[in-house]
């Protein structure tokens, strides 16, 4: 299935959990936070949260900024 990760269409296995997605795409897991479809998924729920088709995933971290 195709989901969007930080705006980029990304093909992934169906089903896939948030935790598996981060491992599969080799994305950082430290000092980051993640939202699915506009709602924060706390780190403690990453292994239980399954992504559906067309899920919009946002993964953010701290950068420079005033």
């Amino acid at each position, binding site marked *: 299935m195709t989901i969007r990760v*930080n*705006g980029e269409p990304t093909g992934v296995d169906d089903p896939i959990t948030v935790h598996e997605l981060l491992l599969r795409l080799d*994305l*950082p897991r430290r*000092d*980051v*936070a*993640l*939202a699915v479809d*506009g*709602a*924060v998924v*706390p*780190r403690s729920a990453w292994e239980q949260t399954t992504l559906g088709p067309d899920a919009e995933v*946002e*993964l*953010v*971290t*701290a*950068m*420079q*900024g*005033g």
Partner: protein
Amino acid sequence: MTVPAAEPLKVADTELDSRLFLGTGGVPNLATLAECIEASRTSLVTVSMRRVSADSPGSPLQVVREAGVRVLPNTAGCFSAREAVLTAELAREALGTSWVKLEVIADEQTLMPDIVELLDAAEQLVDAGFDVFPYTTDDLSVARRLADLGCVAVMPLGSPIGSGLGICNPRAIAAICDSLDVPVVLDAGIGTASDAALAMELGCDAVLAATAITRAEQPARMAAAIARAVEAGLLARSAGRIPRRETALASSPFEGLLGS
């Protein structure tokens, strides 16, 4: 006499030794950021929240942690309350702090706050347990509403973000300082040290400087200058300045003049 040490800033049940908040936007590299944190002697450093990408430059977090200062995530770049609330929630999750500098801008040209969205977001975030530091205009009525909503400080702008124009309406800033019980942090517009001193003389409790430091020709040197200006302004404020007069007032006595 011995000059008394400046009182720490009390905000959100926390004491901050420094009254200069350092924004990291525009810093040329992380080594310079480390120098600026040291030279500014700041206790609080802002960061933005952005998408993770493979070609991201290094995160300032490591530098901030090594310096042992607190981090204040912002919601810069958000145009709506919905975006700002989500960004704040992500920041709390990523960084483990309930402090957030709330910015909701109206457009990319002026970067002025969108007051309707700002008040909406502030209310939601206070209700959700955040310690909210809102970037706002120099309008007293808005500042008062933000304080009434439960924001832990208000951060009025001196002039547009990044402009370096200083404090365009000092009377409006003074009116906010005189009227509110929560700390007032002058945010945006600082161009150089004297602007920061003026902010403190007007009654501000702290100053945030980003561009003025990070884009100065010598950032660490400017960080040191603005830090001293903040201290000088606070000291001058507490010393009680003389009233302004329309006419001259001789400082030397007239008695005992030659030929009198």
